[in-house]
């Protein structure tokens, strides 16, 4: 169908590899049913949301602003992964070397890989956004289906920008520093978005109203700043312009930066990063468990982007801090101290799931422990202990701050933390969340199902603890609606 070794032929090959390593193809038969159930559940929620949006339409300007915030938020989330993926495309060894060593022009190989990065960073958001898009379409709002092309379009642009940044940074700093820079940039964007979300707590209502008003498109329609948002809301001209803009950006980066880079570097092996030195005092231990625990903690804290990921997940601590600082006011909740425990329990669940998933992904050589004279459960127990330790380490300070103000919350905090950690650590060990950097054509250790189930477990435990500690668990809801 496609002549070898042309661009479409190579792209088809890469897409086939991606598909075969995707969750749908890798998922074990007995996991298919839960996947279908969770998918159907999400789609049901999407339909309910779609109905609400269709039944209560808001103004066009407000819709545009919401769509734009969505675009910017997604940009931050995609960017971090795109940076790591771009570095892996250049430095990842194996089939990249194989392709770059073939008579296919290196620029073409890199272009296909860039497209692959775009596909891999877009896929989870397209699946998630598609749920809402489908829900809207059910109620006749067919513009909702524009999430499909628009999220891919955005991913194309993000992949191009990430490649551009990586290629430029690599001229000055090491791959590790480049990766760190990318994570930091993504973190700043993400935290910035979060802070905007917290503005109602600090800025007086009138001034806040002015702020949001200033972000609205206004009488001139907002110009180019809202072009992607308009595309997302289904305006055909804006959709076409967004796609054209993203394609132009992609081709420009490829032609002026990526292609010359590929032609110059040739193979990943030629630019292998130098090993990094770590301070280590060589504490030999006689216990296999202690040795495994020490190894796991090292692997955990050396995981690329660990700080960024912890900060993202620890945003749950912001409302806790606000409650402790007395900035939290919600009807029927008093000083809000009761809300801190469910928040901390949720955070414990999310951190535990993340840490155990990192360790599951880092366990590249399980055979080693299997040839050692230790029970097969030792490495698993060490991984669980390391994840729990790291979680409790991060939770310690906020937990102490909360307990200093309300010592009576200690029992629910202990029960909730222990319960959520027990569930999520075991879940994460069997079904880690996808954390391995988006490597096109490479198998990731995690599954989206693990992520969905893990968040659900954290939410359920958080809710149980909320019901247990709150004097009137639904008072805030009733109060807000009254």
């Amino acid at each position: 169908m496609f002549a070898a070794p042309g661009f479409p032929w190579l792209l088809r090959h890469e897409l086939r590899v991606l598909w075969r390593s995707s969750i749908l193809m890798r998922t074990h038969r007995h996991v298919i049913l839960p996947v279908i159930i969770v998918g159907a559940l999400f789609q049901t929620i999407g339909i309910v949301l779609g109905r609400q949006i269709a039944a209560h339409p808001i103004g066009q300007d407000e819709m545009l602003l919401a769509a734009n915030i969505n675009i910017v938020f997604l940009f931050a989330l995609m960017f971090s992964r795109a940076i790591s993926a771009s570095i892996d495309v250049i430095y990842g060894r194996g089939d990249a070397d194989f392709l770059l060593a073939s008579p296919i022009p290196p620029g073409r190989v890199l272009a296909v890989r860039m497209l692959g990065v775009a596909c891999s960073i877009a896929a989870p958001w397209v699946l998630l956004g598609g749920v809402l898009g489908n829900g809207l379409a059910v109620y006749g709002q067919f513009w909702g289906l524009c999430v499909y092309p628009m999220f891919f379009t955005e991913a194309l642009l993000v992949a191009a920008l990430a490649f551009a940044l990586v290629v430029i940074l690599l001229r000055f700093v090491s791959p590790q520093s480049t990766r760190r820079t990318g994570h930091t940039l993504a973190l700043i964007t993400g935290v910035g978005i979060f802070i905007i979300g917290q503005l109602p707590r600090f800025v007086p209502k009138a001034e806040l109203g002015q702020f949001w008003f200033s972000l609205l498109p206004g009488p001139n329609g907002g110009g180019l700043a809202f072009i992607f948002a308009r595309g997302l809301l289904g305006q055909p001209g804006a959709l076409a312009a967004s796609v054209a803009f993203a394609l132009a950006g992609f081709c420009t980066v490829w032609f002026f930066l990526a292609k010359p880079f590929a032609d110059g570097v040739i193979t990943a092996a030629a630019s292998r990063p130098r090993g990094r030195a770590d301070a280590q005092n060589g504490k030999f231990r006689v216990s296999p468990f202690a040795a495994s625990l020490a190894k796991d903690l090292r692997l955990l804290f050396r995981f690329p982007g660990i700080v960024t990921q912890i900060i993202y997940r620890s945003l749950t601590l912001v409302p806790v801090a606000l409650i402790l600082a007395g900035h939290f006011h919600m009807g029927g909740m008093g000083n809000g101290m009761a809300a801190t425990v469910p928040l901390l329990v949720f955070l414990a669940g999310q951190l535990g799931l993340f840490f155990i998933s990192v360790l599951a992904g880092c366990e590249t050589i399980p055979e080693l422990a299997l040839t050692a004279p230790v029970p097969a459960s030792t490495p698993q127990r060490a991984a669980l202990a390391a994840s729990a330790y790291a979680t409790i380490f991060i939770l310690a300070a906020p937990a102490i701050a909360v307990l200093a103000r309300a010592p009576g919350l200690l029992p629910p905090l202990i029960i909730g933390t222990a319960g959520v950690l027990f569930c999520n650590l075991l879940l994460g060990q069997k079904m880690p969340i996808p954390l391995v950097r988006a490597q096109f054509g490479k198998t990731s250790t995690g599954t989206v199902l693990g992520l969905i189930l893990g968040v659900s477990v954290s939410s359920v435990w958080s809710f149980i603890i909320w019901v247990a500690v709150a004097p009137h668990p639904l008072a805030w809801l009733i109060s807000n609606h009254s």
Partner: protein
Amino acid sequence: MDGVNSRVMSETVPNVASSDVALSVRGLSKSFGRKVVENLDLTINPGEFYALLGPNGAGKTTSLRMIAGLIRPDAGTISVYGRDVLTDPLAAKSIMAWIPDEPLLYDKLSPLEYLEFIAGLWRVEPKLARERANELLETLGLWPHRHERCEGFSRGMKQKTVLAGALIHEPKFLLLDEPLTGLDAASSRLVKDLLLAETQKGAAIILTTHILEVAERLATRIGILSGGTLLAEGDLASLKTQAGLEHGSLEDVFLHLTHSDAHGRPTSPMRNTAA
């Protein structure tokens, strides 16, 4: 040829498994849809350097993985210094070390940290482990890199780090699957000397390799495996004699034996003919 093989086997394979024997494998079979290893018998004595040769897909790695306790055989027994690998795996593993063809390393650990982990798994006394780690890192030329993460290492350096890990607990029995792949000439010589020193200290080694020169120079006995079946076994001289290639090289013997097998000519296992 069947007669030849039967004589070699009958001369070299004792029928008892005791703690005086480093490795005793009897009737080992494994199938993954097709037979990969079939009715394999092997005996290796302490201090012996045994090379297991065979073409790709002959069953060498599967055999080694079964001995290391990584794959459960369909049939047969495996005993290391009298310790049954199948019924008492921890006891057997405590005196074994396995080096696979692909270096088993955590990229984010330094060689010293890696050795620390291995020493912990094998419960080596900390003071002894530190001394042994320092000695191995020095010997293998890794001392200047002991604090660097392995992610930046060449394949050869990774291979040497893995070897250091295998030797830190002073195993009595070493299983080496292509251990010299990726090593330069100097490193290769260093590793060979190190392995020979281990055998002189009494350790037994079984090694698979495609570099026949390594087997020719190091091994006290050589086994040739093809299609999961041991075709011939013995020292180099006896293999040449048995193959009727007194003036040939090990390569000639190897090709002669495996070539005939590849073309479907009768190369039935020696034990069958012996029986």
